């Protein structure tokens, strides 16, 4: 058994922590929204500005989860599994990379490195010095059963905790959901992890 200790939704106009509004965003462009969210974190991380949109949102969500769970920093460096998924893979950057070489252009190496969705896991690992299990999966909808099963498996096997996320972004829309699972109940939300519970909090947005 493992426990959900915090979760976070990010959409175009709101950030919710554990289901409650924490930030309202008033902007039309995705780029602007991401910039505002980054500024609201009040931290300086120069690598952030080189990331693609998908990694930027993953970074922001991870920082918000860390703020809600200061205990994360006490975890061992091998102990946090990073499980992410989405339905669009890296489509947002794939389109931009394809545009870079079409019509006789030069393919952009800085775009190409972001044409793998698991790069966002790498960005989180680098930022936090987390060496644990990695997994990026692609599914057409948020798969609560997979998440509940696989978090429980890894936590039983060789992780103390799992940071998970579902992130889709395109030109018009951000849809992101993060949650943090631990072996030990940190008594914050008293939410045992199972697929029904996960589905319920995912849909709270």
């Amino acid at each position, binding site marked *: 058994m493992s426990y959900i200790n915090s979760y976070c939704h990010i959409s175009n106009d709101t950030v919710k922590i554990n289901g409650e509004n924490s930030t309202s965003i008033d902007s039309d462009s995705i780029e602007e929204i991401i910039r505002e969210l980054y500024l609201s974190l009040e931290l300086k991380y120069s690598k952030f500005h080189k990331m693609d949109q998908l990694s930027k949102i993953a970074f922001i969500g991870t920082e918000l989860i860390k703020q809600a769970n200061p205990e994360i920093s006490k975890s061992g460096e091998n102990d946090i599994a990073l499980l992410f998924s989405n339905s669009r893979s890296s489509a947002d950057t794939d389109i931009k990379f394809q545009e870079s070489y079409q019509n006789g252009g*030069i393919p952009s190496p800085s775009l190409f490195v972001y044409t793998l969705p698991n790069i966002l896991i790498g960005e989180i690992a680098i930022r936090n010095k987390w060496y644990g299990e990695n*997994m*990026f999966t692609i*599914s*057409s909808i948020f798969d609560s059963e997979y998440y509940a099963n696989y978090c429980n*498996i890894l936590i039983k096997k060789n992780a103390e905790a799992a940071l998970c996320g579902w992130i889709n972004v395109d030109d018009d829309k951000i849809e992101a959901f993060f949650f943090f699972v631990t072996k030990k109940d940190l008594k914050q939300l008293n939410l045992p992890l199972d697929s029904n519970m996960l589905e319920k909090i995912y849909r709270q947005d």
Partner: protein
Amino acid sequence: MITYIGSENIISPLGDSARENFIKVKNNETGISLFSGIGVDKEDLYLSKIGTLSDNNKFDVLLAKCLDSIIKESSDNIINSKDTIVILSTTKADIQENLTAPIQSSVEKIKVAYKLHHTPLVISNACISGVLAMNTANNFIQSNIYKHAFVIGADVISDFVLFGFQSLYAISNEVCQPFDKERKGISLGEGAAGVLMSSESSVFKKEALEFVEGTSSNDANHISGPSRTGEGLYRTVQKTMELANIKSSEIDFISAHGTGTLFNDEMESIAFDRLNMNNIPLNSLKGYFGHTLGAAGLIETAISMQSIRTNTLVKSLGFEAEGTSGGINILTQNLEKEVSTILKTASGFGGCNASAIIRNI
């Protein structure tokens, strides 16, 4: 409980079955050849490309052929069982055909065509996807979530991926030479490979092997540059050996990743040196198949399983002179010896690394 692994299959320019591929590899034949005018500046480049299949819909054709072959080598009807999951490993699927949703239609087609009980799980974690897919299957089986897993990896060559690697100056202008002093980069490849993994040995038509354990670890260092200390690779191999309760002295052979780039191969040699695995015979199979990305882990595992079955290790094609600092035992010729336990490793962009141990029963 044992996780059994078997019914391995490979589809590559070298052939349509694991056996056919292994015979060619044993004869040190390569699937890599020169293609003219295909680069971003219309230059000639070396690829391991399947000429016998049309480029149209190639990804789906590869998946289906591979799945058919595994089904033929296993008990009837387990593909449709509620205890069965299909796990697909790919980096870019059919990116040339469908830029914004390259994998969904393939998943749907397979689900319908094979009357699957569960939607296939798609793992897209750069070049460790194949090993990670087997690790995931093992974890599901050991936790009694599923009894059987059909694990398939596939990727096809596209302008998208070729031009991308060219933009990083990662493509060799010769046939790739993993671990060699003169190595200049990768040769891109395409293909598919798969295995059946199960908690029941009776579902395999030929004798199965044991999938002992597998883990992954991140370098936490750089998104596209390998760690200078081989950190993630070192950690995942250590974790896997610990969980498997296997010492490095028990490992007969390492099927390394060995892409043929300067930094990757150097990183791997450092990690194996830190693991005191300097004397264990090791190869990279990229000289035979090129770098097949999401298929690589499964192609190389399937060949290594053939090595266990035939007690024959194949030489690391393209390697002549030591070109890494770790001091590792790269196979310069085929070697007949008893092969019981093997270590498979993979490393990829995003700083990810994975490892798995398979042994004879």
